């Protein structure tokens, strides 16, 4: 189980719907299968234990800065998902 699958299971489902959807897309369309496979590979690698630990350590400080009015925006495509 990848970290992402663990996160999806935390959200309450044993089967990650987004992963299943990507597999279905790849199976339905040979043209889209390379893109769907690339996405699945990215998803499997994207969230690592080290990365999650870094996020966990950063959050309290960032929350404190927000409450103090110090904003530090970043441009992340997942914000528009």
């Amino acid at each position, binding site marked *: 189980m990848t970290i992402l699958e663990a996160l999806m299971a935390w959200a309450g489902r044993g089967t990650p719907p987004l992963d299943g*959807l990507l597999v279905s897309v790849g199976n339905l369309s040979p043209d889209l299968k390379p893109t769907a496979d690339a996405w699945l590979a*990215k998803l499997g690698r994207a969230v690592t234990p080290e990365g999650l630990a870094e996020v966990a350590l950063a959050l309290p400080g960032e929350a404190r800065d927000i409450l103090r009015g110090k904003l530090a925006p970043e441009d992340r*495509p997942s914000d528009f998902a």
Partner: protein
Amino acid sequence: MRRIFTIAASLALLSAWPAFAQIAPPPANVFGIALGAHGVWLDGASAATVSDIEGGLNARASLSPHISLVGSGGYGFVNEYLTGAGGLRITATDVKDRTFSVGVGIQYRWYDDIAYGLREWMPDVGVGWRPWADVPNFIISGTGAYGMTSKRARATLGARFVLY
């Protein structure tokens, strides 16, 4: 004469394309808004599977490198409903990577007709990908979410165009 004009116009358009395509990446503003559409898949042990095509707007307020407030409003074209959501998303991947990121969080989702979905809190995972460096405003997006009251999963896969 017409042929010469057509060739000249085609060459002019082709030469203008790089300037159009190389739109500068959007700056890291606090607020952002994007227009888009996506397919929706719902399932659940006791609920009928509903699928739809939604179009609408997504907005974000990026407060810190990892923390954003996110929201959306949309219309389901197949089943003709309004829906919206709002909540918090935390980026779980490299925040400096503007081409691909994964965020986890929770949103409150509502529908104008509960026949299509309950008003409930939904933990979610959102994925965004800018596949082409030349067109940074274009994003492929996907989400997976789970209704804490309905016990239904909701997945989406679609595209966004960042307006601001």
